[in-house]
């Protein structure tokens, strides 16, 4: 029996040590995903907490087919999506007309100076609707049709949100890169 199977069986038997082991092994990666889907740390913590509770509750349904990490990731993303749906009406989406076009051609931009933390910060600055659609499309690989059902918007809105998210991200990446260059040049 593989180690992960042993841990899962331990969790199913209510073994606290195995539950904690499972958490410690995967919490950091899943928390990064939670941060990516949330605008603040409190929200990310909530998503991680609820996501892990669902993971423990649904372990009995895990069939040991495919990646366990992928299975946990899907649960975490779905939890983020539920939170998003519940707060959907509270969010105000910025008027895209007020967002300027990127000042540099993305193809010619130098992204090399940006690390994962910079990218995370940039993505978290997006308005929630744009962030959700961008994450689902660009990171998770869902189609607009799927996203429209998941987020309960039309396909057109999904496309539009993605397009606007990209515009904002390109602008932010440009400014981050510029700042970093200026810092490195003294």
């Amino acid at each position, binding site marked *: 029996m593989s180690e992960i199977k042993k841990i899962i069986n331990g969790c199913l038997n209510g073994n*606290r040590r195995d539950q904690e082991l499972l958490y410690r092994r995967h919490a*950091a990666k899943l928390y990064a995903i939670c941060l990516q889907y949330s605008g603040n740390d409190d929200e990310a913590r909530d998503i991680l907490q609820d996501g892990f509770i669902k993971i423990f509750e649904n372990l009995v349904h895990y069939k040991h087919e495919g990646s366990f990490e992928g299975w946990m990731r899907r649960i975490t993303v779905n939890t983020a999506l539920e939170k998003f749906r519940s707060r959907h009406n509270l969010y105000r989406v910025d008027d895209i007309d007020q967002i300027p076009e990127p000042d540099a051609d993305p193809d010619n931009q130098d*992204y090399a100076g*940006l690390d*994962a933390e910079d990218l*995370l910060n940039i993505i978290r600055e997006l308005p929630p609707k744009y962030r959700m659609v*961008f994450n689902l499309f660009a*990171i998770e690989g869902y189609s607009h049709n799927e996203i429209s059902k998941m987020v309960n918007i039309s396909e057109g809105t999904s496309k539009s949100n993605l397009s606007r998210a990209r515009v904002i991200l390109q602008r932010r990446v440009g400014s981050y890169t510029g700042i970093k260059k200026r810092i490195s040049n003294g």
Partner: protein
Amino acid sequence: MDEKGANIDLVFRNGLKDFEVLPPPEVWDNIHFVIKRKQRPFILLRTAALIAVVLSMSFLAYRWSREISTGLDSAVMALNEESASPEISPSVDKPLYVTAKKNSSLINFSKSLIENIPDKAIEPENEETTSPGEAYFQVTKSITMNKGKPLHGPLLASLNSSPGNTFNIKEPDQQYLPGNSITKSTDRWSIAAMASPTYYSSFNSGNDELSKQLMGSEQSLISYTGGVAFSYKINKRFSIQSGLYYSSLAQEVSGINSFAGFQKYDNTKGNHNFEVLTTNGTVYTNNADVFLIASGSGERILTNYNNDVFDPNKASLQYINNTLRQNFSYLELPIILRYKVVDKMIDLNLIGGVAYNMLVNNSVYTMVDGGKYSIGETEGLNLLTVSSSLGMGMEYSFSDKLSLNLEPTFRYYLNPFNGMTSSKIHPYSFGIFSGVSYKF
């Protein structure tokens, strides 16, 4: 634009791939608390299943032991009917030892019992009687004799008149009763009433200042445990024991002044007014008339009515006491294995096992004029705790059936009483159980 978009998508997808951020430490505590609470129904179901299994096994074991004794009686009765009935009347209970040559299946059945009879009790008549296919029976109730009359002649003649049977009957006064070995083996069950004063305490394996401070102001009170236990003797050395006990554990929390008469000043609705921190969890007041204030420094009491807002002396509240008492009562279902180390007049047993403790009462009160004044209850207590126990039992037999038991027992609770706190408080208790047991 799509290509540019795809480009930025790749930047983020690749950049965030395998990115990790450590979550805050309290997240795990919250998760664990929730999953533990959700697991409780399963624990209760498991406990119920365990009880059912223990009861079923006990019932089966009881039936099995009954069948053995009934089987033996029937076998002997069958023998009597076949060969000895004309001479035997079913009323005398004096034991008679008979050696028999018998081609019957009951011989095999009785073989194991026969092996327990010392050689002295059996005198084979000749080589023929000791050959395979012969057996020796202790006939206790079904074969009877008239006291003082020599029965050898007519009885033996009658028994030996059946084809294939050869019996040798010994005089009762010559018989060696084999230490009641067979009678003793049938007394597999015993029931006992036990009670014990219990000293409950706990130790702290953590280093946090708050726990140390709280433990410093808490003192254990002598508590009690009592109940009924039944045990089944598996063999000469081992026996398994279960039963149902009621135990009450209590501790005193000092440095908390309590006052009565607060209700007329209480403007809040519903919720508790005071929270008192203890090592076993937070006490929530449910008596609206009580006012609590810590006598020393520290922040043991959480309330909106602190000293700056409300002064109990100015309000002329009635002082009650400066200590609180926390009481937890449990119904215990132990599963204990006993090993007999010494089998003499006073038996010594090693005792070890586990007990499932179900919380049945949780109260916090203070004493006033010898009576109890209710304060509230401790929040977040585990409804089910598991304890392990280890002890040494002494058993003095008054008679074959009755014995006096004395069992000093140490108990360690495997999980803390409170599921909400993440403290490292480990409760334990020590008690000297005494009681009387009856074998049957």
